[in-house]
């Protein structure tokens, strides 16, 4: 096993290094950060047979272009529907390819989706903060943002031909409503506002980054108190500013804040929510807390199965051809 060197030819804004995140420090003002779409991140590593949670490149709509300057390494690209261009061969993401010395690969925004994940067979060397490479975008703490001219070193780079090819995306419908548990400050709103929040349609605004996503839609009128004593915030909290505009807080959220919250998006629906784009309509659906737990538990099982399935190597080209031929009955040695 050798090292590979990936030269960054181009990186758009908000293209960062992310591992699984640094939970456990919210009491000190530090959110977990890590991937915006945790499922697609996990899928990229599963498709390569990597241990879960390693450092990868989170690609924003700004896109990224890499050139392999040394060594060979197999990569997985997952998340959204991004356009992957490998030495001129285009595909729509969710793919495993091998870069050889001199190869170029770009990942750019495609038909839909806001975040893609580029994982390597090997370990991307990275700065860490509090033992994690996850980048907290506004401070730059952690592995940091990628910029043109830098080189990513991939230690113990491997080539895995038996993993090359398409990766099945997880089946989920972006048009389904996003499930929330109402509260904790529903009493800060005018009567009926929780119903407005779950019955009406909102649109994602362009005020969308790793900290949060501001929405456009019917005003959520506050009932007098425009602020509350600052209290803890979690990923998925929907806070409403004094002008009635909701913002869903995401991976790099502030850990405390004084805006009343109408609801919180349940954890497994956040991966789907972050893949929406400015202008896209979205709806919320209220579920009781016990139902939210049941949904998340069922979803965790389904995701484990999915990650296991995409983690099974397909075999080498020769083995695959052999299998195909047997299936199609034209094996002729």
């Amino acid at each position, binding site marked *: 096993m050798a090292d590979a060197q990936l030269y960054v030819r181009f990186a758009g804004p908000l293209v960062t290094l992310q591992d699984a995140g640094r*939970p*456990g*420090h*919210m*009491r*000190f*003002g*530090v959110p977990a950060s890590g991937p915006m779409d945790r499922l697609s991140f996990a899928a990229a590593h599963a498709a390569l047979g990597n241990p879960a949670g390693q450092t990868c490149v989170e690609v924003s709509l700004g896109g990224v272009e890499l050139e392999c300057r040394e060594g060979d390494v197999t990569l997985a690209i997952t998340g959204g529907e991004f356009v992957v261009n490998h030495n001129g061969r285009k595909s729509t993401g969710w793919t495993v390819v091998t870069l050889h010395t001199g190869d170029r690969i770009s990942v750019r925004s495609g038909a839909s989706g806001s975040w893609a994940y580029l994982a390597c067979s090997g370990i991307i060397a990275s700065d860490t903060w*509090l*033992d994690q490479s996850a980048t*907290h975008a*506004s*401070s730059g*703490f952690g592995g940091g943002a990628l910029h043109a001219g830098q080189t990513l070193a991939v230690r113990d780079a491997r080539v895995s031909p038996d993993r090359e090819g398409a990766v099945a995306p997880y089946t989920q419908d972006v048009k389904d409503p996003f499930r*929330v*548990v109402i*509260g*904790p400050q529903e009493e800060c709103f005018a009567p009926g506002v929780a119903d407005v929040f779950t019955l009406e349609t909102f649109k994602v605004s362009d005020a969308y980054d790793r900290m949060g996503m501001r929405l456009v839609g019917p005003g959520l009128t506050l009932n007098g108190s425009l602020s*509350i*004593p*600052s*209290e*803890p915030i*979690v990923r*998925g*909290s929907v806070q409403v500013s004094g002008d009635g505009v909701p913002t869903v807080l995401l991976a790099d959220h*502030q*850990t*405390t*804040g004084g805006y009343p919250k109408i609801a*919180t*998006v*349940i*954890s*497994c629906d956040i991966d789907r929510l972050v893949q929406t784009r400015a202008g896209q309509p979205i709806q919320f659906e209220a579920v009781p*807390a*016990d139902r*939210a*737990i049941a*949904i*998340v*538990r069922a979803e*965790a099982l389904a995701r484990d199965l999915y990650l296991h399935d995409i983690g099974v190597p397909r075999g080498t080209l020769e083995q695959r051809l052999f299998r195909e031929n047997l299936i199609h009955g034209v094996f002729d040695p």
Partner: protein
Amino acid sequence: MAKPMIKAEFKAIADHAMLVQFAKELNEEAHHAVLALDKALIDTPPIGVTEVIPALVNVLVDFDPLVTDHQKIETDLRAKLKALDHAARVGTMHRVPVCYEASFCPDLSHVAQRAGMSEDAVINAHLGGDYRVLMYGFAPGFAYLAGVPRPIQVPRKPTPVRDVPECSVIIAGPQCLITTLIMPTGWSIIGRSTVQTLTGDSDRPFLFDVGDQVQFERIDMASFDRLTKQATDG
């Protein structure tokens, strides 16, 4: 003697957290309850608890929904509350040096004007405060300190100033902060510390715990330079 139990309200947050609320407005009793419950949960966390975040009047208890649920957590929390030791938690006392050199405190004259005091009187009032770490928030390592003496309490400025250097000592209302990043702020900048709240020490990455006490100590420019140099040299 055990105090009567303070009333707590439980609110379910999504699929993975419970908010325990002691009051609607900040008051001493509610915040003491926050500190006491926080300590009890850190000392012996209930099964499935992943994070405990103390704030002004409430504590957020984050948990793994594959291990426990809101009902079980509420039962665990009620048991903790029953056995809560309300004895005021004595936090660690930190002495934090501050340099009030003119270039470090662009808003000192404005605060003095508003308070109807001399700049030196503002500095002395600031030094005279007993500060307590109320909670963290806004940005990594941002510890909100309560205890700015009433005469020098000033509201936030209408427009934030950009690129305020790290280690700036800033005040707004009853609260004081030592910044950890270069950032915009609408708070009044009245000094510069040599102390990093984000210590860079992996064994103790954050200087303060919620509930700790802080006293500011005045240093001159020569000491500021010496302490800053010591810090950068490790």
